[in-house]
């Protein structure tokens, strides 16, 4: 999707200032509030390539930096995404950084402070990052246990930017832009989304994200009946419990009527 990101605060200014001053950025925010969209949009605005790494528990330092591969009976070195980003002066986006193990995240330490260099032990090489290079990381503070997993030494190297779900008028504009939703439908969906977010969290895996509201509006634009679209895009992903789903469905009917 090549649409522009609609800012709900001063996040663009912070991002730009951090980039100009070669500071790494940590994006905090609930799932589906637009972190990835924001980074994509900023990379385009700044004219930098964006290299995204989805972090997971099995991600090793080698996965980020690179490794030797076998070519016939010789070995060849293959740069990992982080090395590639440093060499090319790209923006490297480590999505859900806390999912990566602590021993993996330490390789970014020398990149994230004043040194701005990447040490490739296996090659015996040290690459200095060009000024355009930027490290951006995201994590979701909603999952409390992982908050503790992010080492303080990693956190403290970052400029942190907190994103939340946008305010109602902004979120309505987003729905209108991203899913071509008519204003009235956008208002109904946003009200429903905000109501679900206000629900006490028991039984729900998360709140209804902006992303899921967009999906619902898109399904409707594709011709799906509004109740079915909301059920498929918002309610079903939130809960596996049949009673909760049915009650949320009834609630959605009131918001859509």
């Amino acid at each position, binding site marked *: 999707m090549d649409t522009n990101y609609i800012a709900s605060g001063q996040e663009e200014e912070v991002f730009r200032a951090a980039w100009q001053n070669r500071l790494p950025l940590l994006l905090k925010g609930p799932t589906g509030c637009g972190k990835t969209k924001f980074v994509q949009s900023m990379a385009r605005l700044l004219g930098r390539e964006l290299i995204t790494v989805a972090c997971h*528990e*099995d991600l*090793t*330092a*080698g*996965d980020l930096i690179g*490794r*030797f591969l*076998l070519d*016939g*009976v010789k*070995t060849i070195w293959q740069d990992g995404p982080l090395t590639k980003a440093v060499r090319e002066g790209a923006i490297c986006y480590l999505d859900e950084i806390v999912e990566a*193990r602590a021993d993996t995240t330490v390789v970014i330490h020398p990149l994230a402070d004043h040194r701005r260099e990447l040490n490739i032990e296996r090659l015996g090489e040290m690459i200095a990052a060009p000024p355009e290079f930027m490290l951006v990381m995201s994590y979701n503070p909603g*999952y*409390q*246990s992982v908050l*503790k*997993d992010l080492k303080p030494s990693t956190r403290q190297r970052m400029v942190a930017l907190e994103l939340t779900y946008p*305010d*109602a008028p902004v979120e309505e504009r987003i729905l209108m832009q991203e899913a071509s939703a008519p204003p*009235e439908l956008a*208002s*109904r969906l*946003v*009200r*429903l989304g*905000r*109501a*679900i*977010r*206000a*629900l*006490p969290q*028991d*039984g729900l895996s998360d709140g209804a994200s902006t992303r899921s509201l967009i999906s619902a509006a898109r399904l409707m634009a594709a011709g799906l009946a509004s109740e079915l679209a909301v059920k498929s895009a918002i309610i079903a992903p939130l809960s*596996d419990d049949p009673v*909760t789903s*049915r*009650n*949320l469905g*009834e*609630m959605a009917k*009131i*918001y859509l*009527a």
Partner: protein
Amino acid sequence: MRYPDGDAIAGFAPLASAIAGCAVTVQLGAQSFTDGRSITVATTRDGPIWLDICAQAAMIGAGSLDGALLRHLVGRPKTARRYLYLEVNRASHVLRDRLPLGFSRQPVFEAAQPLTESAAVSLALAAGKRALPEPPPFFGSIRPLFALRHKAADAGDTAGARSDGRENSAGHGVKLHAEDVATESSLLLRLLENPFSKGGWLSDMLNDLLGAGVSKGERDSNAAPAAGEIPVGRVERGLRRGVAALLGTLNIPLPALEDFTGGGQHVYPEWDMAKSRYRKNWVFVQEAEPWLGEDKRDFADFMAPPSVALRRQMADLGLGHEMRRRQSDGTELDTGAMIDYAIAVQSGHVPSRLEVYRASRRTRRDLGVVILLDISGSTASQDHEGQAVFKRQLQLAYQLGRTVDRLGDVSAIIGFHGWGRKQMRAVRIKGHHEAWSRAIDARFALLEPVGYTRTGAAIRHGAALLGNIIRQPNKLLLIITDGIPYDEDYELRYAEQDTRKALREARAAGTACLCISVGAETETGKLAEIFGAGNILAVDEPEEARLHIRQLCRRALAAVSKRRYAGRAMAG
């Protein structure tokens, strides 16, 4: 849209909760109003009832039911109706982003700005002379006393639900509907009194338990509240003693020592708070087989097998990374495999698979789990839904036990209760070397909630089992209990301190400890004080445990492994 049956109306709870911003239930009644926790919708209303629900929930969400303000509305129905009009209007503006569009578009909300900007201003205006329109029917009504009662109950106790049932059964609800101002006021006076005084739920319960109170009929006929019969400061202690004493002694004959058929006896120290030192060889814990009672519980009906979701949650606990050789991809080249490969290629073969890498994989399962199940007499108590806490604890222990067993962890399940420091029993439900079998199912069915809770000794026993016998790198001790430790010479601060000390010892030895309370009405604050706020999981139903158990277990395991590491670093 009419909802004659209660089930369908209950389905409106998410709508009400979402607007109110807190958990709210919905039921049918004679009039639409809310007490702050539940919304009653009039059965007699024509038109869509969700409008009523939205109006009432919005008042909760916008803070219209503030106790200090509501007090001024008691016995002033006219002011209350004017306040209602102003507050629903204000709430519809404050919460317009999450109210249904259909609600916000009601003609009554046409004004761009509400008349008042806070509940206090609404009250002042409502009490004044300015002419205000009559609220439309879907606004329902405002019943200050109902809301106040809940606020007082919230402030004074955690068992508000208990007081509800009691007052309704005593017929107070009916009196309120009669809008009898005098009754409301006198009720309010009683309400604001000390909850331990005569007529308070706590003293009611205590009297019921000890059989010491006057009968309910007598008391209800006695309109003027008398002074408290029980000195307040001692009530909590007295209650705990009373409950434990009754439950501990009523349904059990003290077991004779030869009844024990189990294994060895263990001796543990106990922390003497007053002297700040251990009492050596103080508690005697006897390993025992489950009690062979007369009536075997029919087991099948409530022991649901553990859900896949729970297994998924527990699946990656205690998984360790280990370097695997000869992988098809990986971080490093595996030199041995490389040499084999090079030889094969040089001699003209091309191996079909290129497994020459070393990779770190999370495969090792190195978790030892001991589940300590509180089977003391106090767990036989019923919660507000009439379900025994014991039964739920059993269900949870069963599900957790089966789950960790199926995942391949070394696990043991021990029931604990006792009669003083010389007769603690550790009932073997599942031994750590045992595979899951019908015999284990059968042992669950034999358990009986009797005796007292000497939590510190139980924790020491579980931790010793994990540390000395199971000896896995990751140790997890799950304590399923209804809360407060109590035994002979083991209560209050002393018991709490000893339990805390036992937990500290266990954690220092690298055992992650987690307390799970299910359906118990113990104050979680107390449990948090003993176990640490991050180490308790209080749920109403066994199934709810799966939502948080993974996070808590992981955090607890991570915390002790850090400690272990720090300890080692210091030693080195």
